[in-house]
């Protein structure tokens, strides 16, 4: 009895403003609040609100048979609190249906697992608290930033008490197996891995509106027939994608919402098929083999590796530097500083510095708020220089404590008022 498992990633970073060398030592507020708010508003109107509305409608229409899952980063939740409480409320409404599962991830959507395990644990715990606070459920399944994954992570996550983990179904690791089954990560006892079916996922996420694609225009019945082909050979089809697929990456005019409107009915036409959330999938099926990811994999770009964040010297330096001050931030024991440090760890900052300008470079460019990866590096390192200067070498907050960076919320408000006055 196969099932379909939807997981949507919802994330926005706190983008850094054009922070020049002249700002170092003077301006301790790094966020581009104007841009962050503008993007949050835009994505809310085009995607979050209409998509949530659609999902809620589908859940009600199918009387609990349509089930989905989300992972919301801490930074996007914070931006909803700041700029769009209505969006946050619409996610709470979805949670109340009982048909929606919320997954665990790092609060700051960071690469901390690669650099600092203690910080990783702190961020995961902070994230789960925030999820429980709003959605009244304790996450049981983990997904790491951009589905970055390896055996070690799976074992680590199992020790932290999770029963499942999401990852990319990478062809070279599947060795001819298909991704439509649960697998046991090498080196673990009971945790199960859900593997993304990237072909069927990308049909929606990337190819849906591509007029050069032989299947364009894609209709729900056709797509459902592809899903149904799995009957008899697999347990679960994992459709993992950015939530912004709906309305933002694929505009409403492409018909993406209509497609989604018909899809559950078309899939449920086959009596053997159902929708399940990741936890339900894990409870329903046994692992049918092992998944051996010795090296890190991810869902990014065609390489499915870490090169989108660690592909060049600028990215490597920026990442090394931000984690090199771990002890100094922790010693400072200052909540605001820790929070800013966390926000500087968000993976997007390093993604913007990518110089992979072949086929995937376009994607990098599309998502970047800067003119070039070099600008991204310059602004980030200037910010780092200022932030580092607020920390003392040995720890303890400095004499500059009074002018130390403030929390996002409070400071954002003052900045926004200032902007208003400037206008």
């Amino acid at each position: 009895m196969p099932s379909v498992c939807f997981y949507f990633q919802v994330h926005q970073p706190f983008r850094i403003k054009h922070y020049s060398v002249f700002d170092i030592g003077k301006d301790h507020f790094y966020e581009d609040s104007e841009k962050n708010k503008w993007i949050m508003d835009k994505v809310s109107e085009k995607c979050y609100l209409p998509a949530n509305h659609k999902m809620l409608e589908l859940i009600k229409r199918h009387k609990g048979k349509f089930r989905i899952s989300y992972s919301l980063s801490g930074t996007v939740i914070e931006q909803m609190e700041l700029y769009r409480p209505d969006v946050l409320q619409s996610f709470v409404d979805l949670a109340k249906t009982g048909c929606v599962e919320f997954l665990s991830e790092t609060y700051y959507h960071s690469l901390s697992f690669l650099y600092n395990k203690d910080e990783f644990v702190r961020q995961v715990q902070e994230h789960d608290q925030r999820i429980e606070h709003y959605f009244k459920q304790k996450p049981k399944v983990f997904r790491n930033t951009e589905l970055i994954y390896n055996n070690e992570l799976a074992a680590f996550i199992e020790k932290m008490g999770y029963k499942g983990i999401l990852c990319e179904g990478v062809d070279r690791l599947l060795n001819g197996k298909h991704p439509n089954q649960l697998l046991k990560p090498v080196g673990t006892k009971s945790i199960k891995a859900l593997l993304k079916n990237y072909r069927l996922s990308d049909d929606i996420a990337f190819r849906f509106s591509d007029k050069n694609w032989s299947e364009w225009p894609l209709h729900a019945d056709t797509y459902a027939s592809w899903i149904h082909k799995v009957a008899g050979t697999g347990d679960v089809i994992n459709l993992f994608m950015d939530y912004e697929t709906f309305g933002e990456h694929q505009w409403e005019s492409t018909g993406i919402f209509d497609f989604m409107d018909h899809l559950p009915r078309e899939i449920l036409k086959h009596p053997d098929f159902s929708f399940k959330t990741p936890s339900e999938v894990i409870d329903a099926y046994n692992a049918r083999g092992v998944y051996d990811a010795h090296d890190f994999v991810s869902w990014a770009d065609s390489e499915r590796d870490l090169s989108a964040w660690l592909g060049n010297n600028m990215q490597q330096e920026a990442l090394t530097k931000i984690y090199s001050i771990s002890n100094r931030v922790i010693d400072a024991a200052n909540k605001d500083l820790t929070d800013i440090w966390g926000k500087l760890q968000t993976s997007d900052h390093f993604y913007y510095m990518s110089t992979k300008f072949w086929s995937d470079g376009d994607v990098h460019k599309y998502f970047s708020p800067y003119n070039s990866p070099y600008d991204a590096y310059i602004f980030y390192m200037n910010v780092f220089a200022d932030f580092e200067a607020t920390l003392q070498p040995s720890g303890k907050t400095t004499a500059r404590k009074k002018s130390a960076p403030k929390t996002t919320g409070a400071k954002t408000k003052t900045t926004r008022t200032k902007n208003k006055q400037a206008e």
Partner: protein
Amino acid sequence: MRKPKVLMLGWEFPPVINGGLGVACHDLCLAMVKHAKVTMIIPKSNPDFVVKDLNLIGLNTIDSRTLKQVNYKDEYKTFEDVHFIPSELNPYYTERKNAFTIPGVDIHSQYMKEVRIGRKQAKVFHIDDLYGGDVIEKVTVFGELASLLAQTLDFDIIHAHDWMTMLAGMEIKKITGKPLVVHVHSLEVDRGGVNSQGWVYQMEKRGMQEADLLMPVSNFTGNIINEYYGIDYRKIFPVHNGIREVKPFRTKSPYNEKVVLFVGRLTRQKGPEYFVDIAAKVLEKNPNVRFIMAGTGDMQNRILEKVAQKQIGHRFHLAGFLGLDKVRYLLSIADAYCMPSVSEPFGLSAVEAVQFDIPVVISKQSGVSEVLSGALKFDFWDINQAAEYILSLLDNSTLHRQVVDDAAKDLKNISWDIAANRVMEGYKKHGLIS
């Protein structure tokens, strides 16, 4: 004694400037008018920008069909109508030859434009920027118009600045028989390296061959002219640049670290990559230093990658292209200035640092090293030496003081009045004026 009349040919001139050339031409002219009657022809002038005692003519204000100045200020005389004279001006551009050989017909070029000035309709030389587009055509049309215009003017000496005006200078010399002086601020060999060839190099070589007198801005450049262009030293008469006086000031630095500054285009000539190497060396020994690089250029991305590769991005900052105010602000907080130029005809920026009482560490491959005794000098490739100098300057206040004091004395001998006197001396020595 009658003041000699000098016809200058310039390319960059305030308010249209790209780099040091425009400022140098302007300030030199300003000092020259005390000794000579100077007319300056430039591609583009702004009618609101008037320099006292200087007859400044922008070709954008000259109607090419009648060669009448179309936006007169009171101090300018009206030119008589002049008809076209065919010329062999353009040895490089055969496909445009037609335009030059039909007498009485205006110049056809993408850079000639019908404009309305006041109530008059005129066809003028019109370029948006000095170096973009087809710069060879720009230079050629400038030469043709300037040589036509020159026939309506009275002068004793032609004084051309750099390769952009050399074609005009040669043509005017040919038509009028007046002596040609070429002032050399920068050479293709500085910009492109010693293996430079190509149009610009050839133009420089020919222009300098045909000139009666060459005035490079330093002995360093004089040597390059001799070595790489094969010009006899007897024709070479170096004239060091001057500097405009400024009121230096200090600002409290926002950084906890000492600041080392680089100001210049990020091109091969300026040695920006060496600055990264030097910074990395300094930071190995003293992490409490911040390096700031002001300027932009084709090497920016390479520099950033190098900074990242050396893992010094937290102490090395690119500020981009900055206006004068921002540059002066940086000078006001800097603790040392570094100029690692590979080939620098002069290097005014180092003198500007000296004006702000900042000790300078400069490459020996620069003209300015000839006039600054109060400076620490290194061969541009010797990054260890440069790093050592910077470390010593930042650690040792006695050395710091000594270098700054010595440089302050040097400043007294760097002025545009001295440069103008030297130009007049050169004219005399070479028999161009009595």
